């Protein structure tokens, strides 16, 4: 039976068919759906781990217990997990162990576009690079077999266009599920990586790479498609699809394994074509490998190093280099248009982060930010976030700036999930080494940006089991922070009061601004759209909080000569941030809207909040 599956769904399916019992991940685009999908299968254990390193260690532990186990993460998650990847390469495991890395060329939802194929040669583990959903499933199964055959973790590396493209897949059955071992393995020479033992393992690892080099020469995951011999293209991953599309007459060496490379196969292919070209997205990983074999080839001299490829990009570059393209590239047409307004992603209407950011914007304070929806606080009109590096960096960067003697206090902001991820050790450091930063934890009780995955503050697991919430306040106090305040994230006055109080201490301080994400189902049920009242005079204060539900109306205030505010009823959720900051009491409260609904809508003249008493 064929079904259309995304690459992520196909990887989950492959893991299930391969008999995987344990899977662990931290959510991150474009990898998130792998575990979401895997959690729907019967007879599995899976979890959102608190970060990617924890996830990989969990998978290693499960593999030491004899199970097949998988960890999945986005490319930068592998940086977090890299320490574990490198020891796991030395130790190997008992059951198969696969690490899925979802890279994000073009940075659709990431802070960089690193090419994680590099990790394979770095950590000395084989790397498979599927080119569609069918291969995602097949390669996932192959990766587990390879892992057990060679006693090595296997890197299954994908890219956004593989993870989030859907193509037909032939479904199979669940394979054998190995039971867990009765006993933890007791084999210090293999599993206790102290220097003396690790020195014994490194030669084993290098010898394993040599055996993999032999294996890869005949692996069915690589294949030559002979067509015209004038041009031969070596390619892998989604770039293979672009090669087929744009160079239909060229011979192709399609690599499913990108580390180690099949040297003899590449030599045979090179010898069979007049012009050897490597087509790959991002880094010249294959190209460098081919050159190391002493084979002259072209690659990044033709195709871009940076960003995503697509058929048009490949066609243009290929035609310029005189390669046999399917048809001439078309120049980008000129269209009679004014400059179009951008539509960047924004903090949603009713976003529980807006109350904090409008205050930070007002205070013009330096803000060290982090990875999550709230990063969008950097955008105008709020422009209230001045640094964002990677998960968890906000706190220690603020700490470092403070300890350097910076001339202003720095506020760090990060979300609940990011705090559990890597904020914890950074806050321990702040408490112990005493930086006078204020940390604001934007606690919306979910991992919102990636689509509302559970985290230790949510109270349910990935497999929908109830569990105990790891409460932030006692946690933060236990880390050594003396000044802790919790506020409702929609309460503008309360946020400001807590801010003043905590900033007055000149010691490490934490504000927890709590309000469940407005997009959660239980929040949606409480939406009440607000209205602008007649006493709006177009002062524009509400435009500065960057709420998409607040529009400029066509009506102009005769005195100010500025447009009046208008609330889009389809977008407004009734968070009342605008109600609270309006200097003229010209926006309704939720209570007023309820009154309005209860009474006859037509006859009710709304009073501003001050005048209603």
């Amino acid at each position, binding site marked *: 039976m064929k079904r259309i599956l995304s690459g992520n769904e196909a990887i989950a399916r492959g893991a299930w068919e391969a008999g995987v019992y344990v899977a662990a991940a931290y959510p991150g685009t474009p990898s998130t759906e792998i575990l979401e999908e895997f959690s729907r299968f019967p007879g599995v254990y899976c979890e959102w781990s608190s970060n990617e390193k924890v996830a990989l260690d969990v998978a290693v532990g499960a593999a030491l217990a004899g199970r097949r186990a998988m960890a999945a993460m986005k490319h930068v998650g592998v940086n977090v997990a890299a320490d574990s990847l490198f020891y796991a390469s030395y130790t190997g495991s008992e059951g198969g162990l696969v690490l899925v890395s979802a890279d994000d060329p073009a940075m659709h939802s990431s802070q960089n576009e690193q090419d994680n194929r590099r990790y394979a040669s770095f950590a000395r583990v084989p790397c498979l690079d599927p080119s569609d959903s069918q291969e995602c499933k097949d390669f996932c199964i192959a990766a587990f077999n390879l892992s057990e055959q060679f006693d090595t973790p296997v890197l299954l590396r994908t890219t956004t266009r593989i993870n989030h*493209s*859907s193509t037909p897949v032939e479904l199979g059955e669940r394979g054998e599920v190995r039971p867990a071992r009765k006993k933890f393995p007791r084999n210090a020479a293999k599993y206790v990586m102290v220097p003396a033992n690790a020195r014994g393992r490194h030669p084993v690892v290098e010898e394993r790479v040599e055996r993999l080099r032999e294996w890869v020469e005949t692996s069915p995951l690589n294949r030559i498609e002979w067509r015209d011999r004038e041009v031969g293209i070596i390619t892998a991953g989604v770039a293979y699809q672009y090669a087929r599309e744009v160079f239909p007459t060229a011979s192709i060496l399609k690599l499913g394994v990108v580390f180690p490379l099949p040297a003899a196969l590449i030599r045979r292919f090179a010898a069979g074509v007049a012009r050897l070209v490597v087509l790959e997205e991002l880094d010249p990983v294959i190209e460098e490998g081919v050159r190391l074999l002493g084979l002259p080839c072209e690659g990044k001299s033709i195709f871009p190093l940076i960003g995503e490829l697509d058929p048009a990009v490949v066609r243009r570059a290929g035609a310029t280099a005189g390669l046999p393209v399917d048809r001439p590239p078309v120049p980008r047409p000129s*269209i009679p248009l004014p400059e179009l*307004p*951008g539509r960047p992603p924004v903090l949603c209407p009713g976003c529980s982060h807006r109350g904090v950011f409008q205050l930070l914007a007002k205070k013009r304070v330096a803000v060290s930010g982090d990875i999550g929806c709230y990063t969008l606080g950097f955008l*105008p009109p709020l422009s209230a976030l001045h640094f964002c590096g990677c998960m968890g960096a906000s706190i220690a960067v603020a700490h470092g700036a403070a300890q350097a003697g910076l001339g202003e206090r720095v506020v760090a902001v990060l979300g609940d999930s990011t705090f559990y991820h890597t904020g914890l050790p950074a806050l321990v450091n702040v408490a112990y080494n005493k930086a006078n930063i204020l940390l604001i934890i934007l606690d919306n009780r979910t991992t919102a940006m990636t689509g509302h995955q559970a985290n230790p503050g949510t109270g349910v697991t990935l497999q929908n089991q109830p569990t105990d919430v790891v409460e932030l306040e006692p946690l933060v106090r236990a880390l050594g922070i003396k000044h802790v305040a919790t506020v409702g994230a929609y309460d503008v006055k309360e946020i400001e009061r807590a801010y003043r109080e905590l900033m007055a201490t000149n010691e490490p301080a934490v504000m927890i601004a709590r309000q469940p994400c407005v997009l959660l189902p239980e929040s949606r049920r409480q939406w009440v759209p607000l209205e602008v009242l007649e006493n709006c005079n177009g002062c524009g204060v509400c435009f500065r909080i960057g709420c998409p539900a607040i529009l400029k109306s066509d009506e102009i205030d005769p005195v100010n000569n500025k447009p009046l505010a208008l609330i889009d009823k389809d977008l407004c959720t009734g968070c009342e941030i605008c109600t609270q900051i309006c200097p003229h009491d010209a926006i309704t409260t939720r209570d007023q809207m309820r009154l309005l609904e209860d009474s006859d809508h037509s006859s009710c003249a709304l009073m501003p909040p001050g005048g209603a008493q």
Partner: protein
Amino acid sequence: MSTPALAVNFVLTGVGGQGTLLASNILADVALAASLDVKKSEVHGMAQRGGSVISHVRWHPEAVYSPIVGVGEADILLAFEKLEALRYAHYLRPGGTAVVNDMSIVPITVSAGGAVYPGDEYLAPAFAALGTTVLTVPGERLAQEAGNVKAANVVLLGALSRVLPLPEEVWWTCLEQRVPQKFLELNRQAFAAGRAAVEQRPS
């Protein structure tokens, strides 16, 4: 060599949250139901927070390779919002067709900044300059008439179905499988209204 009638490249655009993903799912289902090869590609994550979104769907009777459509290579642009229609217009090939929802969603750069939302007067000349046809469909209005404004995406699929050489039943069978039972009738009417909106146009 002529291109087969059912080798179709679609680009779907809109604003995060408008239902472009459901529409691209149904386009993929329709292809499978019509025994075509199909690939679909979309972007999740940050852009979904009210940002500009784009999905790609490709049909071919034999084999689809690339999951994404290059600039100037789309046969059909299905735009859920007028500014996004203009933003991605250059994806259309000459002779292609744009199906555009008559809907404006003002971006934050306009409502809280100095940018100006382009007026309707730009639509026709922009697509004419590309040598393409544009069909404007009042998705929200027709969906409202059918019973729920949220069915605008199904209205648009109805309109789109009219410009593709597949029997109506194929579309409807696929829609039925993706729509909850209690909304079947509503969606049937929304789909029919979309088809009628295109049929009634003077050619």
